[in-house]
């Protein structure tokens, strides 16, 4: 099964194209194709995970072209776990979309598949330019999904997102061009090998390219000051789409985690640790603003959007330590935060559907029918995302705190992390009491839509995965540590992609 690595990219591509062709077929058929293709990603991701869990890098050279020349896909531990998370969230989100979003427009299923194509491709690519291409694929699908259902609010939010991301793409290309101009390669492994060889004359150029790239990734990951677009956009999207978007910000985080330790790590000579001075301060600011945003949000969806900013901040604190412990914490926290944020968006949407008068506004309104079910779902999601024991948020936060304890400035990091966590707990408690306790009167019978079992099932499924992160916490943390070890040792990645053969590369260098 050497072609296993490319299947998570091929499958959504084929399914999405098929869905475009099948536009005349009924909704049922298209939904079945979409669900089957999304479900199939799950065993694929598990299979990949099983193959890379012993530390091998699966390298797939497209068309058989040898790595520094051709395009490669690389699956390692980090990529495999991200693929698995994407598959889980996508499945839950698509099942949820079945209950209300997908009938709003004609091409929802096809767009959903193209979105998955972009995300999976970005996780697997071993090449900077293809990272750009897959970013664009996932972005253009995400614009369409964000606009799904239309309306002034969505169009307004989408306009901001599209313009910002187009600027981001331009900067990405400037960065890619600069790095190519300096090094003559775009393959990540090859970049990692060339970086230490750069002389002091071109190192400033490489450094500016690297920092430009960091800016682009920060925009995708919604790090402040580049992340103010996120809460409004995610709040405007339909529930299922917002849940899938919980993965999108993680693509930015993944890119930082993939590129910086590998290419600009401690062994990169003149450009070593180029991002180290920037990521941590920015992450701390993001964390603080995210917590305040959650506290100040007036609607449930806005609060969920700020919660994403807050959790990206926490995550980037772990990444910004640029240490093995930090990477391990980041991997665990990514898994937790992706699943929990997606669940939060689904719960918010469920609640907004059930509150006939109040919608998702955090004010006194009618009590909900099915309050017990929704309340339970909200309670579990809230304690997960606020980082209260015994769920994965607590373990994740502990992991980050422990990783930060060895870093310089640990006191500041701890204070900010803990105070922000407290603010979020207060905010979430206030949200919960506003929604479920401070109610005024019953809804006239029959006005609230019936509670959809599939929608509840999709949300509960995500929460079950969060529980699994705790129940099998030992396995999850040891996987996170193994992944961190792999990330901290770029030599393994380079050797797996380029092999021991120096002849090809020497030939290439002599050409320039």
């Amino acid at each position, binding site marked *: 099964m050497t072609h296993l690595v490319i299947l998570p990219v091929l499958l959504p591509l084929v399914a999405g194209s098929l869905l475009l062709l099948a536009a005349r077929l009924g909704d049922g058929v298209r939904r079945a194709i979409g669900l089957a293709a999304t479900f199939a990603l799950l065993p694929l991701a598990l299979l990949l995970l099983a193959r890379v869990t012993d530390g091998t890098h699966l390298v797939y050279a497209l068309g058989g072209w040898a790595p520094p020349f051709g395009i490669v896909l690389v699956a390692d531990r980090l990529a495999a776990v991200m693929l698995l998370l994407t598959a889980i969230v996508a499945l839950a989100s698509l099942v949820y979309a079945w209950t209300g979003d997908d009938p709003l427009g004609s091409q929802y299923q096809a767009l959903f598949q193209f979105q998955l194509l972009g995300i999976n491709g970005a996780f697997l690519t071993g090449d900077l*330019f293809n990272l750009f291409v897959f970013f664009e694929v996932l972005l253009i699908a995400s614009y369409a999904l964000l606009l799904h259902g239309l309306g002034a609010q969505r169009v307004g939010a989408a306009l901001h997102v599209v313009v910002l991301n187009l600027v981001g793409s*331009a900067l990405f290309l400037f960065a890619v061009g600069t790095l190519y101009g300096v090094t003559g390669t775009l393959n990540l492994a090859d970049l990692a090998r060339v970086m230490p060889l750069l002389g002091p004359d071109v190192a400033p150029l490489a450094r500016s390219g690297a920092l430009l790239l960091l800016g682009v990734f920060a925009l995708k990951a919604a790090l402040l000051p580049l992340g103010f677009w996120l809460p409004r956009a995610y709040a405007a999207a339909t529930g299922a789409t917002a849940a899938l978007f919980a993965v999108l910000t993680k693509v930015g985080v993944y890119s930082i985690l993939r590129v910086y330790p590998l290419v600009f790590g401690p062994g990169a000579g003149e450009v070593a640790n180029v991002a180290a001075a920037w990521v941590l301060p920015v992450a701390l600011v993001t964390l603080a603003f995210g917590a305040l945003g959650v506290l100040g949000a007036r609607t449930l969806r806005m609060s969920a959007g700020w919660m994403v900013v807050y959790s990206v901040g926490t995550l980037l604190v772990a990444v910004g330590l640029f240490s093995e412990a930090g990477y391990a914490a980041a991997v665990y926290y990514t898994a937790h935060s992706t699943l929990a944020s997606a669940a939060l968006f689904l719960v918010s949407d469920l609640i907004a559907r059930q509150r006939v008068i109040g919608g998702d506004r955090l004010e006194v309104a009618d009590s909900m029918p099915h309050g017990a079910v929704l309340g339970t779902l909200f309670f579990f999601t809230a304690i997960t995302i606020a980082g209260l024991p015994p769920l994965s948020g607590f373990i994740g936060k502990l992991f980050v705190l422990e990783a930060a304890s060895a870093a310089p400035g640990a006191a500041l990091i701890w204070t900010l992390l803990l105070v922000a966590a407290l603010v979020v707990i207060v905010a979430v408690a206030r949200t919960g009491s506003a929604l479920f306790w401070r109610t005024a009167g019953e809804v006239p019978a029959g006005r609230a839509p019936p509670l959809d079992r599939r929608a509840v099932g999709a949300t509960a499924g995500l929460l079950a995965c969060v529980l699994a992160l705790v129940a099998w916490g030992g396995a999850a943390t040891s996987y996170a540590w193994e992944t961190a070890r792999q990330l901290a040792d770029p030599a393994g990645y380079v050797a797996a992609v380029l092999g021991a053969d120096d002849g090809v590369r020497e030939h290439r260098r002599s050409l320039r």
Partner: protein
Amino acid sequence: MEALVAIAIGVLTATGVYLLLRARTYPVLLGLTLLSYAVNLFLFVTGRIVVASAPLTDQGLEVYPDPIPQALVLTAIVIGFGMTALLVVLALRAIRDTGGDHVDGGQR
């Protein structure tokens, strides 16, 4: 030659950024277009400027341009074109749905 291209890229970028900061969608769109021209030109010259030579390698040719930036530029042009088209449609839709061409919606 290098100075000329560098100045051209700089002017395109500056104009693009200026227009991008305007409050109406049409100037923003033009700004993004100019910025993408600047990007394309920049990508093209990352392979170094080679004058009076074959576009690709030929037998016995000592100096020839790097073909990779050309391929990158082609991809970037296609993607940029698609994205611009999407933005045009979105801007028109925003005028219809929000009642104005201000970037925050409405007339302001």
